[in-house]
């Protein structure tokens, strides 16, 4: 996926894992926004949970993409407004993401630190609760279970 696409506010999904290179590139683009005094970033990483004795090796994500885009846009706009953010970015993986790889990025920026800590937490919590994204935890032997977010 090209970096230009990330600049488009409504491009929330990316095929596969979110690479450290992509993350550093996103961060670098903020150096010209000199009104910013604080960023907070959340990175979700696929964990090798042990379920009934089997180790998870990957999560395969899918989504009701059109509805998810609407929900993510709404959450993003609301949180930018509530916390008076300078900007906010959300990126979520679709398809297979191996354990140890990044599947969610939330990057929020503002003038001062308090707003970004609060905004980042609320953004992540709301993404988990309100957005129709589904995940299949795939085991080494090819079997799977469906993941379900808990509070």
């Amino acid at each position, binding site marked *: 996926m090209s970096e230009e696409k990330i600049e488009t506010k409504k491009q929330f999904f990316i095929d596969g894992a979110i690479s450290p290179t992509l993350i550093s590139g996103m961060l670098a683009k903020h150096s010209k926004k000199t009104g910013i005094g604080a960023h907070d970033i959340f990175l979700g990483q696929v964990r090798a949970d042990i379920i009934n004795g089997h180790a998870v090796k990957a999560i395969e994500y*899918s*989504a*009701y993409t059109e509805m998810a885009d609407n929900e993510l846009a709404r959450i993003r706009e609301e949180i930018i407004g509530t916390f008076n953010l300078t900007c906010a970015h959300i990126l979520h993986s679709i398809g297979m993401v191996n354990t140890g790889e990044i599947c969610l990025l939330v990057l929020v920026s503002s003038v001062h630190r308090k707003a970004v800590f609060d905004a980042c937490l609320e953004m992540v919590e709301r993404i988990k609760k309100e*957005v129709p*994204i589904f995940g299949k935890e795939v085991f080494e032997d090819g079997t799977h279970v*469906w993941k379900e977010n808990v509070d």
Partner: protein
Amino acid sequence: MKLLLFGMLAEDIGKQEIVLETFRDVNSLRKYLLEHYPILRNKQFMIAVNKQKADKNITLSENDEIALIPPFAGG
């Protein structure tokens, strides 16, 4: 009307889309689904109409996009 299925529900029913007769409202659709797809009876799911969660028993029409949505797992 077209019913979209996602995640574990698509897997359980074996389809990503089902074409149904048009139901008058969400409750009658839900009743039909539970009768015809017993596997749904012990599943948690919500119904979305035109990409919005249908909390109430709203009226449906032929061209509505209906979706059966399992629990979320984003993040």
